[in-house]
């Protein structure tokens, strides 16, 4: 798989986690792709933390409304049944546990669910934006990312980069497999048959518990 295929593969698998009626917040980058793969028949609403529920697809050139942009500043649309609100309401929704699932990228995830995804000391720091709020507030946190960075594991025993949140991650979806964060550590529940379990373990910086119900990742 090339990079685009890898990202689509991950996004598609994440989308299968979403349930009918869910309110979902997608981080920028790879997580944004998840919106393209919501299964038929499931109604999922997307929140845009800059101020609305009902994030729709990009508009046609002549339909752009400069007042309707996503949290990345790009023109988008709002679906029927959506609503606009201010940042206090938006983060009340997030911090009050009203977002069912958030999908975020990560630099590192630890086996206890700690996550680092907002800064590398000494480098340009973009800032945490709404990530810390989403991680502390969303009911379910899914990390969608490539399994390694330049060959180095991103799933670790402990994070070495500054944390974005403590014990926040519930599920990790990579091109290699699906990993649950359990009280005992990472549990591999599904794997991509293009890889062996041994290869996945070798690409992971902490011990993987192998689920007794280990399945192929679709």
């Amino acid at each position, binding site marked *: 798989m090339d990079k685009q295929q890898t990202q689509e593969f991950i996004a598609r698998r994440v989308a299968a986690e979403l349930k009918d009626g869910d309110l979902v917040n997608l981080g920028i980058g790879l997580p944004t792709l998840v919106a393209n793969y919501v299964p038929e028949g499931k109604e999922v609403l997307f929140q845009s933390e*800059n*101020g609305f529920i009902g994030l729709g697809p990009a508009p046609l050139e002549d339909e752009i409304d400069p007042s*309707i942009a996503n949290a990345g*500043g790009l023109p988008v649309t709002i679906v029927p049944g959506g609503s606009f609100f201010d*940042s206090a309401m938006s*983060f009340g929704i997030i*911090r009050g546990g009203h977002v069912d699932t958030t999908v975020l990228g990560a630099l590192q995830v630890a086996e206890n669910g700690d996550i680092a995804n907002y800064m590398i000391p000494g480098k340009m720091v973009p*800032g*945490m934006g709404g990530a810390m709020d989403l991680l502390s*507030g969303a009911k379910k946190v899914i990390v969608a990312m490539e399994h390694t960075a330049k060959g180095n594991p991103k799933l670790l025993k402990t994070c070495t980069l500054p944390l974005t949140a403590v014990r926040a991650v519930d599920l990790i979806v990579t091109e290699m497999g699906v990993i649950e964060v359990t009280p005992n550590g990472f549990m591999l529940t599904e794997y991509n048959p293009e890889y062996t379990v041994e290869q996945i373990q070798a690409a992971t910086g902490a011990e993987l518990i192998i689920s007794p119900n280990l399945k192929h990742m679709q």
Partner: protein
Amino acid sequence: MNKLISLEDAVNLVRDGDTVMIGGFLAVGTPERLIDALIKKGAKDLTLICNDTGFVDRGVGKMVVAKMFKKIYASHIGTNKETGRQMLEGETEVVLVPQGTLIEQIRAGGFGLGGVLTRTGLGTEVEKGKQIVEIDGEKFLLEKPMRANVALLFAEKADVKGNLSFHGATRNFNTYMGAAADISIVEAEQVVQVGEMCPDEVVVPGVFVKYIVDGGSL
């Protein structure tokens, strides 16, 4: 009490050294005309409180390029490389604040609350040097209220009493910053007479708006 003033009179209310809150989210819902006029007038050693620092050529980012800030509070600076450069080279102090915490700190400042008690940022760099309050056995970070000398805000529509309404995702931080500033100035796309705005339609009551600049007349 007619609150309409000229663009020039408006920006003359900002003095060197002031703390300024500026509405907008990646330059959506930002008072661009007020910003341009303030850059033209010139002001230095300002402290900025804003969700982000926009872009080098759009939103509050233009003021970053003009080196008007000695200190910046924002949740995200990644879309404006000049902010990152000034930060890394020690020209400007940048304090990164989780987005949901930032808006609640502003609301607390405007609404007379003693602070914000939140889970967001616990166990991260954000908690450093801050008070932690234990409530029924659970720990919460205490984030202090924020206030400013001047707030520069955007609205879709204002009546001459300062009642505001909005369109799309432009509300973001514009709704509470007026309450938290000694002087609040709103750039409204459209200004209507008293009685032309339905009281049910008002999003921000005029009590939080001291001055209005009629953007439609410029």
